[in-house]
């Protein structure tokens, strides 16, 4: 049968893929549809998206914002096949020694520039009437965020889990804003190249089918679920307890129907409009982009931006099939 | 009239503005033993390198058996330099074997089995004649300077070149060892009858060894422009007919050039 390559990187919402691979669930579904799926772990998240954009992979995991600014902005028509979860506290703004968000004014803030952390910060500032100019952003690699935070010169960071929990465990660290205040805006997706999807719907069916079987397996406190989550925890460098803590601040869509409902909502369209305008402001949509709507984003609630230049699509078709038990 | 083995016809050699040799005219017959003396930098090595084919004349002609000189080194002309003449990564025996291997194995440059044994036989004979049979398996760095030069000579002579070029081969050796080498080289020359060119700094050595002695020197000296004029052969002496006074005359003329250069 056909061979497909899927890239993933270590993050709480994507660890199920690793479990799916090691437990054989993914292979089972691939066999069912007569295809082969190779799941490739990539340490560096951005690199995995770049590879997908360059054509090295048929699908990759990424956030809604990165899906817009990297593949879609590079002209690679992409479809969000699975809406796996949204961050519900997993991303946070943390201050050292200060307890209020308004204390952030004038500080240096260490974060991965142009990432969802940057977006979260922008939303946090917006919520108290500040703009980005009121702070100074220092680009900092996520791998070093924890180490960097221990130095006295670093007083404010915006980052994601597991870094958030590591940092909060240190004395005098206060979470002043997190993604639970903007629920549903930072979304973790599995994105597939639209052309590949059209040519091989089997790939979509196998991936979605596998995903919801994994979801079913990992939920709850049964021995099987514990084993699954332990495996995910260890693979991400922590243990069951650490992983469960991260899950707690992640709104997983364990049921396909929930994911479909989220995708169909008008809120998603609004979210993408906000993300597009943030991206445009930061030059992420490319030099040629005249406005935030330059790249069309299609969702069940309608199209945001240029209808003739749709490059990012939210398509609940296959998740619907899963919800209907038709896979 | 028979063609001379080597002939130079109004030969000039210049490096840019620096004229090294000018107007060299000379003929050499097969079997001569020519020793060359001259002050440092006068162009002796340059002349030898032309005979090797490493340098080409700027003007004039240099002929080998009546034909233009080959423009690169070949196995008809052997050479021994003052240093670096043997291969440091090969033992004495393998150094001597090398030219056989080059000839018989164009692909690997290595002989095996019977061919190798035969070649080794010949190499050992050659090493016997230069007195190195007792160190066959040693590397050059384990040998004294004199032994290294003997090895270089054995290596150069084993394929019986027509011409042997020696550039101060004994310059770095002790006077005592030098005398041994003289005996050796004269013996080999008598046996094989090849043509030898040998550069030396020691006028006495030149007179003792050669059948013919050349002095390279500048005829014209310009203190304002030491490199404007080149050297040529100022003395060309059949060494059979040497007189004491001639020795003195050469020694003085060299002395003058030397003084001139040192200032």
């Amino acid at each position, binding site marked *: 049968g056909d061979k497909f390559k899927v*890239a993933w990187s270590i993050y709480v919402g994507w660890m199920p893929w690793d479990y799916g691979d*090691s437990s054989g669930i993914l292979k089972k579904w691939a066999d069912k549809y007569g295809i082969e799926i190779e799941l490739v*772990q*990539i*340490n*560096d998240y951005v*690199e*995995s998206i*770049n*590879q997908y954009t*360059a054509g*090295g992979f048929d699908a990759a995991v990424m956030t809604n914002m990165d899906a817009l600014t990297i593949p879609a902005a590079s002209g690679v028509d992409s479809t969000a096949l699975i809406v796996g979860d949204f961050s519900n506290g997993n991303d946070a703004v943390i201050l050292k020694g200060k307890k209020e968000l308004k204390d952030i004014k004038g500080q240096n803030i260490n974060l991965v520039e142009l990432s969802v952390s940057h977006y979260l910060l922008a939303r946090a500032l917006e919520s108290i009437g500040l703009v980005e100019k009121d702070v100074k952003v220092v680009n900092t690699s*996520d*791998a*070093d*965020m*924890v*180490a960097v935070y221990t130095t006295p010169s670093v007083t404010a960071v915006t980052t994601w889990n*597991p*870094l958030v929990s*590591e940092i909060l465990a240190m*004395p005098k660290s206060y979470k002043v804003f997190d993604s639970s205040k903007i629920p549903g805006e930072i979304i973790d997706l599995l994105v597939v190249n639209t052309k590949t999807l059209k040519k091989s719907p089997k790939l979509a069916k196998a991936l979605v089918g596998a995903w919801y079987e994994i979801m079913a397996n990992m939920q709850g406190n049964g021995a099987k679920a514990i084993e699954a989550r*332990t495996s995910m925890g*260890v*693979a991400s*460098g*922590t243990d069951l307890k650490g992983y469960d803590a991260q899950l707690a601040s992640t709104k997983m869509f364990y049921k396909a129907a929930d994911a479909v409902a989220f995708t169909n909502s008008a809120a998603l369209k609004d979210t993408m409009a906000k993300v597009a305008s943030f991206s445009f402001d930061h030059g992420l949509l490319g030099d040629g982009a005249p406005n935030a709507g330059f790249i069309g984003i299609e969702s069940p609630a309608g199209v945001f931006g240029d209808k003739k230049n749709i490059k990012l699509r939210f398509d609940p078709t296959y998740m619907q099939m899963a919800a209907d038990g038709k896979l | 009239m028979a063609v001379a083995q080597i002939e130079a016809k109004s030969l000039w050699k210049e490096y840019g503005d620096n004229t090294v040799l000018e107007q060299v005219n000379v003929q050499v017959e097969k079997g001569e033993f020519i020793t060359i003396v001259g002050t440092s930098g006068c162009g002796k090595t340059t002349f030898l390198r032309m005979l*090797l084919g*490493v340098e080409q004349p700027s003007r004039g002609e240099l002929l080998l058996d009546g034909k233009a000189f080959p423009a*690169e*080194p*070949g*196995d008809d*002309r*052997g*050479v021994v*330099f003052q*240093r*670096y*003449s043997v*291969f*440091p*990564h*090969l033992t004495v025996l393998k150094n001597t074997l*090398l*030219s056989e*291997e*080059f*000839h018989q194995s*164009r692909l*690997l*440059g*290595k002989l095996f089995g019977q061919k190798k044994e035969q070649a080794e036989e010949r190499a050992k004979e050659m090493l016997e004649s230069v007195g190195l049979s007792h160190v066959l398996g040693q*590397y*050059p*760095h*384990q040998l004294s300077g004199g032994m290294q030069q003997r090895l270089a000579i054995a*290596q*150069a002579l084993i*394929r019986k070149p027509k011409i042997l070029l020696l550039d101060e081969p004994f310059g770095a050796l002790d006077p005592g060892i030098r005398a041994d080498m003289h005996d050796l080289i004269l013996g080999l020359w008598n046996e094989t009858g090849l043509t030898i060119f040998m550069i030396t700094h020691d006028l006495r050595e030149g007179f003792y060894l050669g059948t013919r002695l050349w002095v390279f020197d500048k005829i014209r000296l310009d203190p304002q422009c030491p490199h404007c004029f080149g050297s040529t052969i100022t003395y060309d002496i059949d060494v059979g007919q040497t007189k004491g006074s001639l020795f003195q005359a050469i020694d003085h003329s060299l002395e003058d050039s030397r003084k001139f250069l040192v200032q």
Partner: protein
Amino acid sequence: MKRLLNQHPDTTQKIILGVLPFVVLLLIYLVASDARLVKNPDDKLLPSISDMGRAMEKLALQPSKRTGEYLFWQDTGASLTRLGLGVGISALIGLFFGILNGVIPYSRINLSPLITVISLIPPLALLPILFIVFGLGELSKIVLITFGITPFIIRDLQGKVLELPDEQLIKAQTLGASSWLVIVRVVLPQILPRLFEALRLSLGAAWLFLIAAEAIASTDGLGYRIFLVRRYLAMDIILPYVAWITFLAFLTDYILRSVSVRFFPWFHSTK
């Protein structure tokens, strides 16, 4: 009193003096670690020796629950394989072009400027391109190492060939050698020990590129593990891993040197 530059320590002094700095460093670490741990027993920055021992025991002596492998040894094996392949391939390419460029003027003039320019490109800046061209598998890691050290090896060996006394090449030709025979019998054997030296000089860079590559795309390897646990500031794993890498670097250097001394006695005694 003799002048300082004429004073030589005796054997006992030598040993004491040589070991002293390490002992001092160790003491400083122990004191600093202790001080931090007293203030905050959960401090991860300077773990105690026993913490490190426990962490390493888990990685080196207990099979991983997930895969049943001994992670530490798996990491070591994966990294050494990549390093070996990368350095080995670089050695072959370096040897080939080093000798070619050193011996054949046409080749040197054709390729030298290009190699010089390539040697100036910082490979880390090209990482994204390398990954896109060579994919994310083992290949790209080996390519990064190769890309990082080969230009240096080529240039070094080319220089070493050019340093061979001209007299040797001339002599070989008067003994009847063709260009090819000069290469295989005169140049190659004399350049091999220099290749070993060049490799020893490049090993540091090779480790660097290996770690950088493993940090970006990998599922095992010493560099991967360090980057994975960096997020949790697990210094109890990072420090022993760094020490282990340092030891491996020392070991490879030692092995390369021993092999060279063993096979090229003439080279090491003339120096």
